[in-house]
Structures are given as structure tokens and as C-alpha cells.
């Protein structure tokens, strides 16, 4: 499975890292197929695996269904059309749910009911993915290293832990197939949206420090940290005003760094081989902090396109980096 650098005798490992797929069914299926497609050895699925929106498909009295999609009312006639619509919604990372008008009214009126629906649909999607990945990867002996992100609620941890297809990485030091260590942290510094897994920089630093304490060899280690380092270009996204509206100057959106200062400090201090990050979909790119190569594969999951990064690792070096847009 692993190549060998003839000159140095070191193992060569190719990993494929993606992040922020936000529930996109098609992106997850592409990830499972990428093992053979890109001929890589390991798959790493970064945080923010769950979707953000439930799309109700309301049954009408005339036997048709109506829904809202990309801001437009959609009328679905016949089972085939409904199935196609459900697939489309799932591929874009949303959760379709067929319901009656009464059900819709009840759920719409109750935040608790909405939370319940979200949890049910998120769980179902993750179980579906686990089954799909098990079937796809069972003969390969490969698991998907998976971690949640700041947008993912904590109840999903148990599902990821129990699944045979995923290697739940959150908060752990794992050893990859070529012997290198990887630590993972799903948490981010504060965002304007008060997401489920965000905390102050102080708390984040404390979390990170306790995970890093487990690492034995930083020269080959991977820091799989959802939040990118502050002011690294991997963390640039449109600046927002207090109403969450994009700030523009001269007609262009103004970009601002929103990464984590503690992640940056940690990488600067410990100098691992590689930093894998996500969180900022627009932040696709690489950035070097001392000897550490930091990578954000970016994300455009709603288009059904899986952005990723193939990295070739040989001992204490990253010998190749290739972004993909499949």
C-alpha cells in the first residue's frame, strides 16, 4: 500500500483531506470513492460534517408535494419527481423531510420540535453514511478519520465512535498507518453564530495543550485542528457587521482574518509537520508557519463538488501538495 522512497528508505504515504462537507450526500460518496480515484492511502474528513437546514416537503391534499428550494416554491408531481428532489436536497447537504401540513405547522411553531427533527435527520444521515462507507471500504481495510467541527452538535460523537466505518479522531492522538501521529480538535474560537463547539481562545488553548501533550514526535506529526491559525490567509472570509451583513469597500467585500490565535501559537511553538484545517470555506490554500505546512482544502459542498487536498508525506517532509476539485 505504501510507496518507498528509494534514496531514503522512508515510507511514502498519500492522504486525502477534505473538510466542511456539511451533510452533503454526494460529497461524502465522492470521499469514499476517492481512495481508488486518487490512489491515496488514508482519508481524513475534517469537521462540520452535518447540514444546516431541513427542507420540509409538505404533502398536499391533491396528492402532490410542495417545498422551497433555492428560494423558490417547488411543486412536485409524482413519486419519481419527489425522489429526484429528495436526492438533490440531500446532495446539497440539506435534510429533506416529507410531512403533512399539520406536521409542518406544529414543527414550525416549536423550536424544540425543530431541534428534535434536526437530531433525527442528522443521525439518520450519519448512519446511512456509515453503512455506505462500510460497504465501499470494507475490502480495503481503511477507515475514514473523522472529526466533528464547531457546527456539529456533540450528540454525533457517539454515532461516529460506534460506527465501524469511521475512526473518531476528536480529542485524540491517533497513529496513522505509516506510524505518524495525528491529534485532532473540533473546537473553534468564538464565531458570530454561537455554534455548538466554540469557546474562548483561553479555553481553546487549554483544550489544545492537553491534546498536544500526548504527541511524542512533532517532526512527523499532523495537527488536525478545525480552526485555522489566525492571520494565515487560510482564515480569511468576508468581514461582517453587527447584522451579519458583508462589509464592502469600493464594491468589493472586505476580507478579515478570523482564525484562532491559540491555534497559531500552538503551531508556532510545537512546529508539527502538517496542520490540517477547515472552518473557513473561502480559505482554500496553504500557509507555512516556520516548518509547519498548514492546509485548508476549502469547501463548496452545496455545488456537489468535493474540494480536497492530496498530500504526500515522507518521514519529516511533505513532498507533494495537490488541491482537487472533484
Amino acid at each position, binding site marked *: 500500500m505504501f510507496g518507498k522512497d528509494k534514496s531514503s528508505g522512508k515510507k511514502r504515504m498519500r492522504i486525502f483531506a477534505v473538510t466542511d462537507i456539511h451533510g452533503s450526500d454526494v460529497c461524502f460518496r465522492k470521499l469514499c470513492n476517492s481512495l481508488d480515484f486518487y490512489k491515496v492511502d488514508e482519508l481524513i474528513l475534517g469537521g462540520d460534517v452535518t447540514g444546516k437546514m431541513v427542507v420540509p416537503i409538505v404533502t398536499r391534499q391533491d396528492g402532490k408535494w410542495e417545498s422551497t428550494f433555492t428560494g423558490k416554491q417547488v411543486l412536485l408531481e409524482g413519486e419519481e419527481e419527489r425522489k429526484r428532489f429528495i436526492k438533490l436536497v440531500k446532495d446539497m447537504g440539506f435534510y429533506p423531510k416529507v410531512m403533512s401540513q399539520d406536521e409542518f405547522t406544529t414543527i414550525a411553531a416549536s423550536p424544540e420540535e425543530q431541534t428534535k427533527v434536526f437530531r433525527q435527520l442528522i443521525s439518520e444521515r450519519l448512519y446511512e453514511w456509515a453503512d455506505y462507507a462500510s460497504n465501499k471500504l470494507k475490502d480495503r481495510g481503511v477507515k475514514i478519520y473523522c472529526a466533528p467541527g464547531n457546527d456539529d452538535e456533540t450528540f454525533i460523537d457517539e454515532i461516529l465512535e460506534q460506527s465501524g466505518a469511521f475512526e473518531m479522531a476528536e480529542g485524540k492522538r491517533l497513529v496513522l498507518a505509516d506510524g505518524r501521529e495525528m491529534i485532532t480538535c473540533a473546537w473553534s474560537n468564538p464565531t458570530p453564530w454561537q*455554534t455548538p463547539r466554540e469557546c474562548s481562545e483561553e479555553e481553546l488553548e487549554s483544550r489544545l495543550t492537553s491534546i498536544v501533550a500526548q504527541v511524542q514526535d512533532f517532526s512527523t506529526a499532523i495537527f488536525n485542528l478545525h480552526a485555522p491559525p489566525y492571520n494565515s490567509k487560510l482564515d480569511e472570509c468576508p468581514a461582517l457587521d453587527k447584522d*451579519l451583513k458583508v462589509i464592502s469597500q469600493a464594491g468589493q467585500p472586505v476580507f478579515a482574518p478570523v482564525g484562532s490565535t491559540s491555534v497559531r501559537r500552538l503551531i508556532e511553538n510545537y512546529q508539527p509537520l502538517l496542520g490540517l484545517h477547515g472552518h473557513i470555506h473561502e480559505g482554500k490554500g496553504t500557509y507555512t508557519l516556520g516548518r509547519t505546512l498548514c492546509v485548508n482544502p476549502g469547501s463548496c459542498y452545496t455545488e456537489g463538488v468535493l474540494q480536497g487536498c492530496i498530500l504526500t508525506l515522507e518521514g519529516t517532509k511533505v513532498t*507533494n501538495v495537490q*488541491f482537487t476539485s472533484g
Partner: protein
Amino acid sequence: MVDALGGKKVFLRRSSGLIKSASTWDVFIFNVGLVSVGIGVANMILYSSYIYPGASIGWSSLIGGLCMLLVGLGMVAWTITIPRSGGIYVFGTRILWPPIAFALSFVEVGAWLYYTSLGSSWIMNIGIGPGLATLGILQHSPGLLAAGETAAKPIWVFLGGTAFLCLSGWLIISGMRKYFLSQKIIFSIAVLGSVVLAILLLFYRQSDFIQNFNSVMAPYFPGVTNAYQNIIDTAKNAGWVAGSGGVDWWQTFLFASWPFMAYIGAAFSISIGGEIRSGGRGQFIGIIAAIIVSTLAFIIMGVLSVRVFGSDFLGAVSYNFFNGVQGGAIPSAPWITLLIAILVRNPWLALFINLSFIAWIWLWIPGMQIYADRAFVAWSFDRLAPDRLGKVSERTHTPINAIVLAVIGTIILLALYVFTPYFTTVIMIEAAAFSWFVVLFAGIFFPYRKKSLYEKSPLAHTRVLGLPAQSVACFLGAIGAGIAFIFMWSDNFAAGHSKYSLAVMGGFILTGLIIYAIMYFYRKSKGINVNECFKEIPCE
């Protein structure tokens, strides 16, 4: 919570990224800022009657605007379907064979870099040179007049242009905050200057101009009482053929490529599609409104200029100057900045309008360089350019290598423009129009060839005459770009299809293909297949 925005019946949970979009106004401002009114109007006045006798500036502006409107529709469709930053490179790589997509992107970036270098030369040619000459003429100062002439000489155009290109590079390297601030100030000056220009043209009459022109030019035409008429007569005697009085439609069509060249900036928000997040509406209104407003501005300023200066005079004065007609040439190139200065005979007002033209031209320079930098970084990520081009400086947090390469590229193109005959005025725009045509044409088939991607587009539910909206919009866009290409192809002055023109265009496309091939084999030797960057992973 139920998302009540726009009455959508969906449930949203607490998660990041749910932001309100940048406004349509922002997209509009971005695009208008990249329509160089200065370049467009200045060229229209200088060349219309001289090279295209009988051409109607108003109709040419309108025809160019209609072509651009069609192109804009196609580009709007693309950017709604693929709301990513990167312009035609992103669109092309989704539908075309990767080497072709890269080669077209290479041509496009080459065109915009060429535009940048052209802009820097025009700051000297249209701005500083005529500005000094204008003051020299108005103040009867031979020293200022000579300085103006010197500034417009090739070596000074090159040196001055290089300085502006480097200044722009420095501005971008030093960070976007400085860039935005400077663009804001410069855009305000540019717009204000154009408004003042339009008002002046509206309230002055041709008789005012003739009187002032004869008075100002008296020292340069000794013994001639009516220098204005003398210029027209000497030009005709020297062989210049004036328009017949009516509209010559063929010349009008040919001349449309000049305003089209300036309007292209109105669709530049496709390059920041992923950053706008305003979805289809913002891009649609932002692009279309920018095209319409720019077209109206060109028509108003063009028609008023002809009314005040006179069509025959505009053609004759350019003809005499560029052909050195004895007894008929004025001492400086007859750019509109000079003519308006003579019209108002107020050095300060003349200087302000001159400054506003420089401001319009300047807006292009960093804007276009940034476009090229982004393309270089994108190519680097896709392993089609050296890794170093994608590196971001730890100190400035900007892609210094990419910016420096863009500056060097523009300086080389500036030298080619200034010192060689191979790069005629809009030859690279012809190549860019070709690139846009190919990408728009390919867009017709996108809904059929990439069905699974297209059905996620907000456009997927809109059909026109039973056809996918993107197919129709891209068909119209291809027609617009195709017509513009034909105008340029048929016009040997603007671009044409001489062996030089074809060599420049073909050379750029071929260079793009060669670079792709080199990078393909180089990366392959390192274990990377660059074609995999763009291939869609099977999802079953």
C-alpha cells in the same frame, strides 16, 4: 427557527455561515469601477472620425453595449451556476478539456495584464502628457508644452508607465486595506470629473469651442484666422476622407469594439463570484446595471463631444497630428482632455478633468493586477504553475511572488506595446473576446453535459422556450462575444487578422498549451497528475 427571510419554508439550526449577502450596489460599484470611462471616451474621441469616418459614436456605444449585455447575461448564468471566484478559469475547467481551459485562462490573464500595461501607458499619453501640454498651450508656456511632448515619448511612456505599474504592485503587496481606501478616493474623483465633463459639454456650444480653439491656437497657426476650419481643410487636402454626413453603418459596427473594450469591466464581478454570496440577483443586477449605466455614460459623453467639437474636426485634428500634416497639426495629441481644456480655458478645471481621466485609467491597474495574481495563485494550487506563486508572505499576508510576477509581466507587455508594432491597440482584447466566446459557447452545453452539477444551480428550475436558462443565456452571450470578435477581426486598425495579430493571439494560446504540457509532465515526474485536479469523482 423557521427562516422567515423571503417567506422560505425551511428550518435552520444554529450554525456558522448564515450571513446576509453583499449588496447589489457593491457589485455594481465594483463593476463600474472596472469600466474605464476614461479609456473608453478618450479613445472614442481620438479615433472615431479619424479612423472610422461616418461612424456614429452614439450608435457604436449602443451596439458595443448590446454586445456586452448579451455577454453579461451569459456570464451571469455561469456565475449563478458556479458561484466561485476565478472567472472563466473556474467555468472552463468544469466543462472543457483542462489544457484548453487553462490556455483560455492564460490568454485572458494575458489580455488583462496587457490592459494594465496599456492603462499605465495611457496615464502618460492621455493623462500627464496632455495635462502638461494643455497647461503649456493655455499659459503659452513652451517649457510646459515641451514637457508634455516629452512625457508622451516612448521612453518616458515606458519609464512612467513602469513606475505606475510598480506603484500598483506595491499597493497590493502592502495590503487590501490601503488598496480599498485608495480606490474609494480615486473612484470618487473619477466619477466627479466625468459628471463635470458631461455638464460642461452640455452647456457649451460648438461656437464656443471654435472661438476658444482659434484663440488658443493662434500662436501655432500664424496668419490663420480660423485654425478650426484650417485643420479640417488641410486634412482633407492631405487625403483624409470625412464622413458623408449620414451614418456609415459598417464603420459604426467596426468602431463598436472600442466601447466594448471598456465595457468588459462591467462583468468582472464574475472573478469574485465566490466572495459576493449575493446569489443570482446581486450578480444579475450588478452586471446588467453596470453595462446599462456605462453605455448611457458613453452615449451621453460621446454624442455631446461630437456636438461641441464637431465630427469633421475630431477626425481631421487626429489625422493631421498622427500623420504630421504640415500646417494642420496642433502641438499635442488631441485627446479629449486637451480639447475640453481649450473649451473651458480654465487651467484648474482642465487639470481636474485631466486628473479624473487619470483616475479612471488608474482604477484598471491594481484591479487587473489583482485579477492576474488570483489566477496565478489558482494555477499554483492546481499545480499548473510553480508552487512559489501560491505562497503567501508571512510578513505581508499577500502572495508577493504572484504580485511581482504580474508586475513583471505588465512591464514586459508595456515594453512590447511601446517599442514594437506587434501589439496593436486591442489585439489582446480580441484574444480575450475569443476566450470568453469559447467559455460562453461551452456553457450552452453545461446543463446537458454536467446535469448533476447544473441541477443544484438556482437557475435549474428556470426554462426559457423550454430550454435550460443557462443554455439560452450562454447562447446569447456567445453571440455577443462572437459579434465583438468579428468586429475586431474585421478591423485592421483595432486588431484585425494580419499575420501579426494572428501570431500574437495564436502565440498566447499556444504558450498556454505548452505551459500546461510542461507542468503536466513535470508534475507527473513528481507523482502528481494535474488532470485529477479537475476530474469529477464518481459518486456511486
